[in-house]
């Protein structure tokens, strides 16, 4: 695997720069088609590093499709086709010769419905490492513990790592999925409505976690919940009918939206 090290020099330097908001994901005139139907129209946006960017918009506006384009999960959908450019750390994801498997290791994903494997808690977190060829017990143990700690789950599961992941509660399962994604040490974490199936307390835990994680990861989160976007994100992008309507700092989007559509949506006039 030649493109295994998806980290380019630019990203390393910007990581060392720390607080500066370097661009992590650069999107230029991105179009997405399902067969004949054009689902995304000329998306342009820059997602800053180590911040939380929220995608909001009514159902079917293309925000999830766009999110899944960032780790090329849409490749498995028949008839899907893209135009334009998405670059992560300056490297075009859709350039010919990109190793999709290596790419997905660098860009983790958490899904709407928690989907732990029917394996033990330990094996769920270790999965990404094992397929990467890591079999050293010490390394695995350390990574599993570190990932579970980062996902704020370690304290609850440390005594039953060999118990089934399916015996955890819904909120715990979702945090396990986050730990699983973190274990392969991605640069970007994509979250597709990660709390939509959870109760308020579990949701709060996920939100706190997202806030914690942004010091180490670039996070993109799709959400239906406007308050959630306002609470967790630094920047917000509002999508409608496959178009990016407005993209700005979250405070600006919610306090002083420039577009009438945005204002109507966030004040609940439709959606």
């Amino acid at each position, binding site marked *: 695997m030649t493109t295994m090290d998806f980290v380019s020099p630019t990203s390393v330097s910007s990581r060392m720069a720390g607080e500066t908001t370097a661009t992590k994901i650069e999107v230029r005139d991105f179009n997405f088609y399902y067969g004949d139907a054009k689902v995304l129209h000329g998306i342009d946006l820059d997602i800053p590093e180590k911040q939380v960017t929220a995608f909001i918009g009514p159902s079917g506006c293309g925000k999830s499709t766009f999110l899944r384009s960032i780790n090329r999960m849409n490749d498995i959908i*028949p008839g899907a*086709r893209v135009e334009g450019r998405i670059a992560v750390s300056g490297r075009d994801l859709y350039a010919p010769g990109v190793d999709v*498997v290596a790419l997905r290791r660098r860009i983790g*994903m958490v899904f709407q*419905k928690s989907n732990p494997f029917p394996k033990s808690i330990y094996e769920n977190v270790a*999965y*990404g490492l094992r*397929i990467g060829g890591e079999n050293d017990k010490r390394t695995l143990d350390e990574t599993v513990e570190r990932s579970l700690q980062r996902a704020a789950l370690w304290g609850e599961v440390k005594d039953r790592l060999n*118990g089934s992941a399916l015996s955890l509660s819904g909120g715990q399962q979702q945090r396990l999925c986050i730990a699983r994604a973190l274990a392969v040490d991605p640069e970007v974490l994509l979250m597709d409505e990660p709390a939509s199936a959870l109760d308020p307390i579990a949701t709060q835990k996920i939100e706190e976690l997202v806030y914690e994680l942004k010091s180490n990861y670039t996070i993109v989160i799709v959400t239906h919940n406007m308050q959630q976007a306002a609470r967790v994100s630094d920047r917000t992008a509002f999508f409608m009918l496959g178009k990016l309507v407005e993209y700005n700092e979250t405070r600006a989007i919610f306090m002083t939206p420039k577009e009438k559509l945005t204002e109507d949506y966030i004040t609940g006039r439709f959606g």
Partner: protein
Amino acid sequence: MPTPAFIGRGNRRILDKVLIALLALSVVIILAILVVIIGNIVFHGVRQVTWEFITQPPREGLTAGGIMPAIVGTAALVLLMSVVAVPLGVATAVYLHEYTPAEGLHLAWARFRKSKGLPGRKRLFFRALSALLATITRSAVANLAGVPSIVFGLFGLGFFIQFIGRSIDRATQPVGETLWGQGSLLWAACTLALLTLPTVIVATEEALRTVPQDLREASLALGATRWETIRRIVLPGSLPGILTGAILGISRGAGEVAPILFTGAAYYLPFLPGDVTDQFMHLGYHVLILSTQSPDVEATKPILYGTVFVLLALTFLLNLTGVIIRMRTRSRLQR
């Protein structure tokens, strides 16, 4: 005056009761048939099954002695058949379910036709081609399941023995010598494997379908390849279903006689098969021989009952093993 609707209601209620009674009757009839068959065999068969019966070969023109070579032959045949049928069947099902286009031939072809002038057209063409291959394979499997078992026997004789076996002989044996070009354990197992294949394929595909798409996506999103996802997530998740299907297919194959009639089963052998090129005795075939070829019908009857009982017991044991394996894997997988 009562409305017609009221009269209708009363009739419908009676009809309902009659139908329930008819359904109950059919259940009773089926149970009765089962009890009579099993009861008869167990009643007459169980006392024949002695240590000697199980460990001795037949004697005095099949009117005395045991059925040991038939038990060993059946076991060897079933084992060899599983080795051929299960990997082939599981591989076919994995290909059909995991690698061919999920949208089916119709849609894949429509997408290709609509893609004129668009990039990626070549990919859509191969997708449609792959969907066509899947459709052909599936209908072949379905038709294979409907072929009478005696036809499998004839096919085995013609294809495996006459064609493949003879070809191997011509290439490897001295002129006039026959080693592969005759009935044997190997060719009988291959023939029987063909018969079992549809069951294994259909059951495996069914089992693969039960693995949620979510899990495949989770694995792919962690940077697993398609094959790693199949090996680590899909196959372990569908193992109980695959095992059940395999064992059901095998236990059906174990009792079949027609496919092995011309491909390797022997009337009587004083020795046990020591090689896949040897002929063998078989419980089902032995039943046929005992009931049609015996010089002394009365003397053979108890042996016949004993043989049928053993065959039935082995099949039952196989099914039971399947159920137990499935329950154990299931409880291991789900908390």
